[in-house]
């Protein structure tokens, strides 16, 4: 067992699960979507990205790309939330929330691809 592989898999899967947890629920119902969970998803996603740095293989490049997509989507979602809550006069309305959740849905898809690639790679390596 390789400890580095454990950490690697841990963060990538955690990014997906947190993302999924936030996405779950009615799209415009504030009670179903927790800001803390979005923040956690973003933080873990960023860490997952950095862990993928420096891998020069073909697979490494694709993994990094999916992570960057997830980061981008989550950052925009968090940015929209921050703007609505702190700057905008209307606060976090259900339309804004729907936008945030759908953005996180996009990130979810990217994370899903990332995990699928990880699983596929693990299966093909027989050592």
């Amino acid at each position, binding site marked *: 067992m390789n400890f580095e592989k454990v950490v690697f898999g841990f963060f990538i899967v955690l990014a997906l699960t947190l993302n999924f947890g936030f996405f779950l629920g009615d799209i415009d119902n504030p009670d179903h979507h927790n800001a803390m969970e979005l*923040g956690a998803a973003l*933080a873990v996603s960023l*860490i997952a990205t950095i*862990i993928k*740095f420096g891998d020069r293989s073909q697979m490494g490049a694709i993994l990094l790309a999916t992570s960057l997509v997830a980061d981008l989507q989550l950052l925009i979602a968090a940015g929209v939330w*921050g703007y609505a809550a*702190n700057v905008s006069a209307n606060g976090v309305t259900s339309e804004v929330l729907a936008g945030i959740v759908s953005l996180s849905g996009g990130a979810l898809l990217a994370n899903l691809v990332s995990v699928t690639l990880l699983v596929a790679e693990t299966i093909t390596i027989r050592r």
Partner: protein
Amino acid sequence: MNDIVWLTMRRMRGPLVIMILVYSLSVFGMVLISGQDADGNALRVGFLDAAYFVAIMATTIGFGEIPTTFTGAQRLFVYIVLFPNVIAWLYSIGTIISLLVDPQFRAVLARARFNRRVRRMRQNFYVVCGFGYTGRMIVRGLLKRGIGAAVIEQKQDIIHSMALDEDFAHLPALAGDVTDRRLLDLAGLDETLQRCIGVIAITNDDHANLTIAITSKLLRPTLPVLARAETRRVVDNMASFGTDLTVDPYTIFAERFHLALVSPVKYLVQDWLISVPGTQLRSDMDPPDGRWILCGVGRFGSRMAAKLEQAEMPYTVIDVHEDRVAKRPGSVLGRGTEAKTLLEAGVDKAAGIIAGTGDDVDNLSIIMTARELNPDLFVVARQENPLNDQLFDSSGADLIARRSLIVARRILAVATTPLLPVFIDHLVNQDERFAHRLKHRLEAVLHGFAPGLWTINLVGEWANSLHVAAREGTTTRLRHLTLNPRSQEADELPCVCLLLERGSLRTFLPGGDEKLMEGDHLLFAGRGSAHREMLFALSEPTALVSVVTGRSQPRGAIMRKLARKRAR
């Protein structure tokens, strides 16, 4: 460029993971612990405020407790997370800074910069491996003729000092292993670098030169390779895989020495052609008949001995190595720096002496001692270190073998005026009448100073004037090109056409009536002003035509048409 990004990413992985972990945990903590507003009501800290506060805490900026004064619980939490945050932050910055001063990272940066500058070269260039005294001379010569250079040199100091030199500061230069294939790739062996026109390998190390030559012949077989090699074995080896030019300074000098022995006039003329333009010309050369003394029969001395034998000159060898002395009967064991040894070798009755040891000071000492014993000696000296130029100049030696100068001149000649070696070969093989004829013609235009050499290639736009003249119904001849285009009278430019090359046909010292055609290559020797006038005449289509037809030519299309009508 890619390397830099990857290296940064790899090195920054640890610090960034730690920083994001600590940072996000702190933010979550701040959000979870509720604060208090001025009235004592519970107040949840928002994400934005929490993130903002942690950021100013971690960077030790510390604007204060935001949004309201903290409660005890909050302060306790901040107290706990403060240190890990600051440490994580400093750790990241420290890693970035250590990366910037890391030799490996700097090497990658330097390599990327070098490659960028090579790719941006707008003129044709040579890859020059080795930037010692010889390399410097060669690059200077190339730049003077509008050819660029990408320099690779083993020693970092030399590259640093290059950046301070005005002449070379703009050139791409890289310190590193000159035999490294990747460096050669960056410098010009890469197929995409079409402006690279050749590789010059002139490091002090024969083996390194050999490696460079092989590498470039394997990677880009069409690229000419000019290399320096000082041992017979390496010269043969290089020639075996098609190195375009191998320069062995000692052999070149020995051949010249032979030429001086058998035909002083040929020696003089070729010496004029290869001298640095503008320097005083050597006016006489008469090596004496008689016995020679040869001090040192190493790489240099043995080649000189062979040439003395070829010229049927008797000679006596002085050498410190017993085995070398034993091989040549009648030789004297010794250094040659003491009067005793020189007298033993018969210096008082000798005609000339060759100071050919590998040590400059020994050679100077030999010259001085020998001159004292016999003031009429003809002195040939070998100089290894270019810093001793002045010492050897004032030693009064008649011929000086300067290794780096010989290499630099030969390589420059081949790289910038490829027709010159062809011409000199012809000169050496022809009879003396040819040399005398050339000497007279050169003397008439040079007035005692060494000529510049240039090649005129009548191709592309340089042949425009020929077409214009042909349309006017006249033929351009060589004598038109050597007339001053700005002058109304028949004013000859101070130059001599040495060689005309048309396809595989070569005409040496062509006469003025020779017709010029598109595709001709002409080699000229003469004063720099003649070169400028000639280029002017060729780049200005009407200028040459005016010379050819003898009428000044209108430049505009309409006026030209009118003039042609009037002529009919």
